[in-house]
């Protein structure tokens, strides 16, 4: 198609946007609200995932060894444990180290442990602290380690872990369902709004069909109109969420320092494109839906 024709399409699209000013404003409003909700929810979801991965990464298996294992048995166990493919790293903590650590944790009350330092008196066991690549593999790995000879007990905070996995799984599903529902309702609302725009121009479309304009010639200005409305509608939530989130991150860093939110730049790398593409996509989809009926002349 010629360049002049495209100029005509774009001019027609903008003329129509201004001619039906209120309708256009309504469409943009719907896109703004939808993308704002969607964007906020995505931010929430990202941060839940981010925080839970932070928590998950701290989970490890602790394997306590039988009393009186000797050095070579420990070395063998180390080789066996690091031999499991799930294992990222395993650290040997001797009973002396463990006692030292406990003492440090107890601080001023550390004197209570005096007298336990002697070889025969130390009540603690040698142990391995094992970290996996994927937190979800912890329960299974714990079972395998428990089978090894020389291991007396395995600890991995199983209940906390199971509950955490359940919660994040539910949150993810709720999130997906919520986003699908929002997306559908947004498309429907935009399609309806643009249908009204098309309806006010039905005479024009009818005449175009009458004088032999091709379907695409009729469609393009509306598609461009939808695209522009979607783009305008995504600008506001993108800017709003960006600055709002930046402010939130600063506030949280200052007031709740131990809560680590995802850094703004990292989140928006993906969110920015997603919202723009969704906005434009919704606009185009909406206008195409509403045009189909009117083109059957």
């Amino acid at each position, binding site marked *: 198609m010629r360049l002049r024709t495209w100029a005509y399409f774009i001019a027609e699209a903008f003329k129509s946007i201004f001619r039906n000013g209120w309708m256009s404003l309504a469409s943009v409003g719907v896109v703004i609200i939808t993308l704002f909700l969607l964007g906020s929810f995505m931010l929430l979801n990202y941060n839940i995932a981010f925080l839970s991965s932070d928590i998950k990464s701290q989970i490890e298996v602790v394997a306590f060894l039988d009393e009186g294992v000797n050095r070579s048995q420990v070395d063998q166990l180390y080789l066996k444990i690091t031999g499991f493919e799930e294992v990222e790293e395993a650290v040997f903590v001797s009973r002396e180290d463990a006692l030292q650590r406990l003492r440090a944790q107890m601080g001023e009350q550390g004197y209570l442990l005096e007298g336990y330092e002697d070889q025969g008196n130390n009540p603690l066991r040698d142990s391995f602290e094992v970290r996996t690549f994927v937190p979800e593999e912890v329960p299974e790995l714990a079972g395998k380690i428990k089978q090894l000879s020389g291991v007396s007990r395995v600890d991995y905070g199983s209940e906390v872990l199971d509950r955490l996995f359940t919660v994040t799984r539910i949150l993810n599903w709720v999130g997906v369902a919520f986003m699908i529902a929002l997306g559908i309702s947004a498309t429907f609302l935009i399609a309806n709004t643009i249908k009204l725009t098309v309806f006010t121009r039905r005479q024009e479309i009818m005449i175009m069909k*009458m*004088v032999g304009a091709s379907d695409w010639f009729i469609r393009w200005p509306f598609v461009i109109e939808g695209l522009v409305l979607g783009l305008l509608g995504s600008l506001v939530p993108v800017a709003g969420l960006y600055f709002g989130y930046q402010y939130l991150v600063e506030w949280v860093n200052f007031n709740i320092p131990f809560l680590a939110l995802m850094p703004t730049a990292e989140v928006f790398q993906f969110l920015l494109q997603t919202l723009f593409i969704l906005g434009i996509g919704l606009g185009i989809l909406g206008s195409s839906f509403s045009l189909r009926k009117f083109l059957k002349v």
Partner: protein
Amino acid sequence: MIEFISVTKRYPNGAEALKNTNLCIEKGEFVFLVGSSGAGKTTILKLLYRELLPTRGTIKVLGRDVVKLKKREIPFFRRNMGLVFQDFRLLADRNVYENVAFALRVIETPTREIEKRVMESLELVGLKGKVKSKPSELSGGEQQRISLARAIVNQPAIILADEPTGNLDPDTSIDIVNLLRVVNLRGTTVIMATHDQEIVDRLRKRVIEVEDGEIVRDQLKGGYRHEA
């Protein structure tokens, strides 16, 4: 150039608008389609510009089988005909010039060409002086003349007019029909569906009378009513 071979059109509600109709119209003819409302005149026109498909039969226009036209070919097929309706169908928010130019713009005619042709058409219908007026500022007759200018601006082979004088007073009606005659004299085939007895009787052109979906009369130099 226009041929209906055993054409039947049945609407989804079961009504038969056209029954096994045969019809032939040559290039350059001026034809009146007459008959009472609902007799099938508009159906014939709609079949000709492929707004409707026949239930059975073959329709040939300008050497093409209308029934076999692909969907994307329809717009290009329609560029061969100019359509005029009783209700003018003008765009209220655009001036006279833009209304006529619209027909050329949407088929991607070069801009220079558009201006030349629009002015020629407007001159023919005698509205060259009103290019800047909006349709609402014009009389019914003037509006129908713009609509006619739009129909001919693309220099179509056929003009289809569905009751073009239905909303106009007798004098204005004659103006419009005279313009159609001028267009016809330049070689364009004109098919006009009408109820206007006075005009049909005055012009003495070919008259095709439709009654209940059947052609009951096809007469050269005929009048509105059957004359023995």
